[in-house]
């Protein structure tokens, strides 16, 4: 059996077993104690601490605490498990007090961003690979600068050698800003190639006004434009693959703080009531 499939089955069955155990234990608790919500609450909090711990685990990679891959699998499936715990804890209804609405809201944001994160983490690498032009994220400015310099040199060369300003003028009008920085972030994210096609069309139109040697330059420019577009694509996707954690992790800490306050309030105010 293929490795991924086997792993998925293993984790899913673990999750299933844990869920069944939880639900049956929960029904037992419901009968045995008035504090079933406390127990699910603590369980939820404990699992959330473990989930938050994944962030800290990554900071000490040299300790042989097992493979990050396994931890992530645990993180994912335990994350789903918290969904069930959460539902049991709130007894399937949305809370009514402001404090608790915000708490549930924070949970929803963390859960939602996590789901979004795993979707793009599993899906987008294939897009990046298919498009090619692989480059480490931090090197993108370097490559961009190199492309920009090449394009600028081509434009200047066309003026100096071919005694014509058509390409240089087009460069100044259309391409300078294109090469200056990351472009078309959103259209890259949603895989729309309209901006590139427009630019290439304009370059194509320009060819009508060019002579043979200028066309060679323009063909080189087309190549650079394609490369720059690929670079922007890498930038957009790689940046988003990093940015979703800007929601997931900070809100996780908010959620943890809010949960601690929740524990204090519950113990302070319920005085045993549920």
């Amino acid at each position, binding site marked *: 059996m293929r490795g991924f499939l086997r792993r998925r089955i293993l984790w899913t069955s673990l999750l299933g077993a844990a869920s069944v155990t939880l639900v049956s234990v929960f029904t037992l608790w419901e009968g045995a104690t008035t504090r079933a919500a406390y127990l699910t609450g603590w369980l939820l909090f404990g699992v959330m601490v473990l989930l938050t711990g994944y962030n800290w685990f990554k900071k000490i*990679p040299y300790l*042989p605490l097992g493979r990050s891959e396994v931890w992530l699998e645990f993180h994912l499936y335990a994350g789903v498990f918290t969904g069930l715990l959460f539902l049991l804890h709130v007894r399937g209804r949305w809370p009514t007090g402001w404090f608790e609405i915000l708490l549930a809201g924070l949970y929803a944001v963390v859960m939602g961003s996590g789901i979004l994160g795993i979707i793009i983490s599993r899906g987008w690498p294939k897009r990046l690979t298919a498009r090619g032009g692989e480059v480490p994220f931090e090197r993108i400015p370097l490559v961009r600068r190199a492309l920009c310099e090449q394009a600028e040199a081509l434009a200047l060369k066309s003026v100096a050698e071919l005694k014509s300003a058509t390409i240089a003028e087009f460069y100044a009008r259309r391409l300078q800003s294109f090469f200056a920085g990351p472009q078309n972030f959103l259209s890259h994210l949603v895989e729309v190639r309209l901006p590139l096609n427009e630019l290439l069309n304009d370059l194509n139109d320009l060819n009508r006004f060019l002579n043979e040697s200028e066309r060679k330059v323009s063909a080189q420019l087309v190549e650079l434009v394609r490369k720059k577009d690929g670079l922007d694509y890498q930038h957009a996707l790689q940046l988003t693959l990093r940015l979703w954690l800007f929601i997931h992790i900070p809100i996780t800490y908010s959620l943890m703080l809010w949960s601690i306050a929740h524990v204090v309030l519950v113990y302070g105010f319920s005085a045993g009531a549920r």
Partner: protein
Amino acid sequence: MDTVHFVIDKPQRWDSQFDPEMTEAEVKRLMEIRPFSEMDQGKFSKRTPLTGILLNDARIRRFKNGEIIVRAGDYGSSAFLLLSGHARVVLNPGLPAKVLGRRKSQNKTLFQIVAQLWTNPRDPEVRTTEELDDSSAFQPVGRRMGVFLQDVPRILDEHNTATMSPGDFFGEIAALSRAARTSTIFAVGDETELLEIRWQGLRDLMRFDDHLRHHIDRIYRERTLATHLREVPIFRRLDDQQLKRVIEQTQFGTYGDYEWSGDYKRLAREGTRSPEKETIIAQEGDYPNGVVLIRSGFARLSQKFGHGHRTLNYLGAGCEFGLREIAHNWTRKDSVPFQHSLRVIGYTHVIIVPTAVMEDIVLPSVPREELPEPFTPEELGGATNSATQLKLDAGAKIGPQLMEFLTENRFFNGRSTMVIDLERCTRCDDCVRACASSNENNPRFLRHGQINGRIMVANSCMHCADPVCLIGCPTGAIHRGEIGGEVVVNQATCVGCSICANNCPYEAIRMVEIRDDEGAFMVDKDMRPIAKATKCDLCSDQIGGPACERSCPHGAMRRMDMNNLDAFARWLNR
């Protein structure tokens, strides 16, 4: 049709002299002493006369008392002839690593590992004085750095040594077969003079001088062939007498370019390398004249496919070729030719046991059931789906394109190649950060490299089976670890010459300018920054193996042994 030619000087055999300071006078002096005085100059070709070999491929080196000539475990491409003075060989057990000026390979304690959390410097490439001041064994000798044994009398007391006298030849096996030096040899007395001959010169000397060839042949057969053959299953049942007879008739040879690593990458990029230019060891369709055993280096196993050849696999040290054909012919009284071709990739050292010896001595000693299966008529008819064929055909498992990619870029060399599945990798750089945390806040690889389809081979040290980076290190700072065989650089003894970095065909070694703990660059007297070679050390001082692989959250990265393509194929199709 008009084609553009680049006109460049064709490289000549002796464009670069081994030692520019080697003079005719010294050659003349050498010609008067044995063994050169006894060599028949007439046998040498006109283009490579003996004097030319001595002038261009040899140099005279003088060693002081206690200075190490060759160290056990080092890789070197030259042999030595003791001209005057004395040298001693340290017999088993060898000298401890510390005495040899190597970094002590030791694991960090658990506390030290946890302490990395706060002890890792925040600046890049910081070296503390303790790290660098490990070089008590190093002293400058003229323009070069020498490694000296401290307290020679005590070493003589405590270790078994054997004396070498003028006229003794050593280091030739390691040079020719590209194996690690087996023992340490150091100079005794300040006036020890040696002739160092690089392997190209040695090869020519052997070619034209029967005496030397026989001498080296004999040493090789005596010292290494027996143990090597014993390791091959088919020869295991031979008794000493039979083995001796096999050894006597065994041939061995070296193919390809010893220093293949230098240009091949450029050539591969330009597309000028093509397998048909590779030296053929055995050709498909030829009569099987012997079993080829690969001793070191790599060879490509290919088969005719259409009008071209398809790479089935590559064979590394310890693999055999042609046994099945010979066994088939012997059992079936048939005459099946070689079914595959064997070509040199880079450099290969092989042992060939002739068919007659196999049939007379070896095969009768082996029970029938242990012999390889004979070819079926279908296989001979060209069917490629038999079980044995499929087992051999790694190209089919990982796909022919990836196979070519690995072969073309010589990635098969890697014992711990970092492969990244780009369809799983989210480019999160967790591996780089983990690497940095485990290496004083310095990453030791670049998460980038050659790409084929969804597989990227990152620019990280592969800990090659045939580590070309080790050749030419002046101080032996780059060496193999004692336990895992990982290639590591001793930061204390690295002089920053960047020979290893230039030698490495996989761009896995990077030179860095080191800083002190304040973050200022360290400079030498000439205000030049001090550089050190850095590379992946497979986290050999940490517990739990390479941090990069462990830290990948998506299971996108693996350290793969490229000689086990089955594991690689399994990983690819996971």
